[in-house]
């Protein structure tokens, strides 16, 4: 476990990619295969199902430290990270005992879930007493399920590839889907041979680079080298039909079993050994593609009721074919994959599995004009894909481009602030913004990102000096700072005081040149609502 804690420390103490990869390679080389498998599990963002309710952890930690719960909460506010607070508050004793990561997980952590509360408490307290601060911190990260250490899956893949002396694409594919962190899995992961794969295993998704809205696509070259498609605001999915079963994966590699029954049943009509890439969208014949807010009503539900199925019907809008006749087709050029896809979908002729049609234009200028209609179709813009390119692993520059419409922007006034978490703990970085209506400021959006470090410190000082009232962790401040916010979409909403919900709001820039009175009004925001 100390080796794993040390890996965490090394990853956490550097921002340099090469040092992170070196730390991981180092770990994979020296750790037993089963530990390496668990490390891969955690580093690639997978978690243990909740072992202990965090409320109990807080309570026990306060009791062990001999402090009241309010003081524990104050400490948490200062630290901004629960696992870290737990590991700092409890006075620990160092111990030379050291078991492997796997022993820890199997013998100490997984059993926590099965214990009754008093035994659970005893087991957790034992962990606190017998570990040094760094190890305790990492274990608490595992227990609270908040294990994040600034390593992307891509980076883990590169480290594994370097360790195994294999191509990152092979590793990326083997890391997809539902695997169990065992020694066998890890040995298969790094083995030079073909290896066996599960029927459910998805392919790594091909991702797009963004085209700057201000620059446009003309630097990409000839428009005829590219296929254009609408870029939808739905849920990216990979639909697999293999061995008589259907699997629908999200881009976050979650198997979305039973959530989209219409699509899963459409999948049953696919020939065996077929894998499609596409977008799950709310869609009905009368209105076309439904806004994301409608789809959102179905997200996160394990089972979907009849009412919702009728109100928000969905389709799988296929745009790529990755496998057919049990053959991996990713190396074929786009045009050829597209021809296969068109034939397949047309033969299938299922209302829930439809083709994402191509958008044709003779010039970039014409395409730009078509793109202007994106919002009316509930699309985010256009996708441009090189006709001669294979289906790449991850975000490879030059094959897929997303050309989104410019975001909405509006000038709003900062009225509430709250401290951030993690690196931004103890600084006021989470803001609520408001717009004018009848001489009053109506809150309408929260934004967390967009300012640089110097600006964040400046706003932090402002908040401390201009606090009017505190409501728990939230401060209301003198309405003085004006910021330009950007957001992707706008929806009427009954749950919001302002009556509208914004999608992906973020700070574009701080309008130091503007007075609060010069900020926009809620009515001006309403004017941006699409189709009204």
């Amino acid at each position, binding site marked *: 476990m100390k080796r794993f804690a040390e890996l965490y420390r090394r990853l*956490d*103490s550097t921002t340099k990619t090469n040092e992170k990869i070196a730390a991981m390679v180092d770990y994979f080389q020296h750790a037993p295969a089963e530990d390496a498998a668990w490390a891969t599990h955690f580093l690639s963002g997978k978690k243990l199902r909740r072992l202990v309710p965090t409320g109990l952890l807080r309570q026990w930690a306060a009791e062990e430290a001999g402090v009241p719960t309010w003081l*524990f909460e104050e*400490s948490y506010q200062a630290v901004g*990270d629960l696992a870290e607070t737990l590991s*700092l*508050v409890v006075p620990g004793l160092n111990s030379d005992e050291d078991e492997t990561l796997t022993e820890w997980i199997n013998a100490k952590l997984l059993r926590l879930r099965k214990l009754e509360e008093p035994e659970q408490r005893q087991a957790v307290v034992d962990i606190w007493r017998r570990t040094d601060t760094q190890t305790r911190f990492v274990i608490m990260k595992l227990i609270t399920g908040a294990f994040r250490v600034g390593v992307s899956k891509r980076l883990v893949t590169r480290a594994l590839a370097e360790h195994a002396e294999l191509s990152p694409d092979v590793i990326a594919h083997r890391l997809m889907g539902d695997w169990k962190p065992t020694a066998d899995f890890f040995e298969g992961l790094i083995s030079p041979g073909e290896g066996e794969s599960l029927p459910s295993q998805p392919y790594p998704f091909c991702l797009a680079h963004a085209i700057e809205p201000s620059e446009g696509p003309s630097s990409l070259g000839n428009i005829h080298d590219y296929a254009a498609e609408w870029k939808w605001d739905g849920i990216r999915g990979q639909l697999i039909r293999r061995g008589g079963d259907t699997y629908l994966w999200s881009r976050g590699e979650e198997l979305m079993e039973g959530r989209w029954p219409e699509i899963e049943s459409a999948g049953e009509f696919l020939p065996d050994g077929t894998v499609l890439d596409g977008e799950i969208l709310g869609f009905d014949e009368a209105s076309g593609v439904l806004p994301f807010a409608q789809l959102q009503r179905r997200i996160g539900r394990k089972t979907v009721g009849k009412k919702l199925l009728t109100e928000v019907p969905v389709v799988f809008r296929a745009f790529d074919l990755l496998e057919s006749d049990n053959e991996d087709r990713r190396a074929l050029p786009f045009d050829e994959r597209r021809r296969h896809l068109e034939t397949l979908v047309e033969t299938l002729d299922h209302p829930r599995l439809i083709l994402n049609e191509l958008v044709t234009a003779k010039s970039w200028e014409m395409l730009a004009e078509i793109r202007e209609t994106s919002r009316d179709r509930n699309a985010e813009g256009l996708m441009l894909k090189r006709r001669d390119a294979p289906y790449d692993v991850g975000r490879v520059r030059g094959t897929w481009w997303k050309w989104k419409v410019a975001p909405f922007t509006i000038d709003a006034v900062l009225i509430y602030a709250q401290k951030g978490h993690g690196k931004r*703990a103890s600084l006021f970085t989470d803001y609520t913004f408001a717009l004018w209506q009848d001489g009053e400021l109506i809150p309408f959006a929260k934004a967390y990102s967009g300012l640089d470090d110097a600006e964040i410190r400046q706003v932090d000082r402002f908040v401390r000096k201009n606090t009017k009232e505190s409501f728990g962790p939230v401060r209301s401040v003198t309405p003085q700072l004006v910021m330009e916010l950007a957001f992707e979409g706008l929806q009427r909403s009954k749950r919001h005081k302002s009556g509208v919900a914004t999608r992906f709001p973020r700070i574009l820039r701080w309008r130091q040149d503007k007075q609060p009175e010069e900020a926009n009004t809620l009515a001006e925001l309403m004017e941006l609502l699409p189709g009204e």
Partner: protein
Amino acid sequence: MGKWALYLDAIQRFFATKEFLPVPVEPMSFDSLLVHTKKGLYCSAGDFFVDPRRPVDRAVVSHAHSDHARYGCRRYLAAAPGERLLRMRMNSDAEFEFLAYGESTTLGGVNISFHPAGHMLGSAQVRLEHQGKVAVVTGDYKLGDDDSTCASWEPVRCDLMVTESTFGLPIYRWQPAEAIFGQINAWWRSNQERGLCSVLYGYAVGKSQRLLSELDTSIGPIYTHGAVEKGTQAYRDSGVTLPATQYVGDLPRKHDYRGGMVVAVPSAHGTTWGRRFGKTSTAMASGWMAIRGARRRRSVDRGFILSDHVDWPSLLTAVEQCDPETVWVTHGYSAIVARYLVESGRNAIALDGVVRREGEEDSVDQVADVEDES
């Protein structure tokens, strides 16, 4: 604004313009001994301030850090071991008077003496006695006898204790300094083996000298930033033995720093001044380094948790040993510590207005120090 709100506002404004803000009522009155004012703690019987926050006529000073020893006062009274440091940092036209630890003097019937605080060379708790009541102002302090650069803290029994609370949260629990110095020397040695120059940041006066005193000189040569060198010289002149150091400014620009250790002020991090050292590993020694977010914000390679302030358990130990009837909490997590003490059955209030933020463990004029270097 309603009529009552306006009225209240007027009252508040009236008091805000007054020199002396009233201190909330408490069981024992310390009014003639010590009151909390905008200019700092004031003793009316003796007509002096303790660690004033603005220039005043007569200042009784706990130690030489600039957030306690205010520049520009007419007269200073402080503990003798800190004489050179205080004279170095204060206005030379002032009158200075120094007392050995435990020795006392009387001003307006108030008996004043200084007792070791363990924070840095010459740091003292200020003990005031008047008409049978005793107040102790701790200044900054730490417990333990593992700092060879200054006298160790001693408990002083009192009725009123004014304590700092920079690290007054239960997340702050220091490891023995010996263990931390073990880590620092191990880090230096590993850098030395890799041909890197180690750059260790600590406050110019106090922390830097404590670091110097524990560095393992068998690993390599030690270099100093200008502000650190100045403080170190003052320590040596005061009779503290420290290892040999070389001032970076005295060396040729092309000097080979590989394997060496540079002790510098935190504000030098990331400036052009640091380029001359070639490939480096950087570290910061401070109590704030206990928190991961603070470590990451500093963007140094290592954070060593080493502080010259009391941590949570030792703050509580100190209060227990001095056993005051009333505690005033200042400089840090004042409200939190005060609330905890009240719930533990002691009279305690937070003195507002003195809030220390992260990174301001000891405020030293670092910006000017760096400019001196360039």
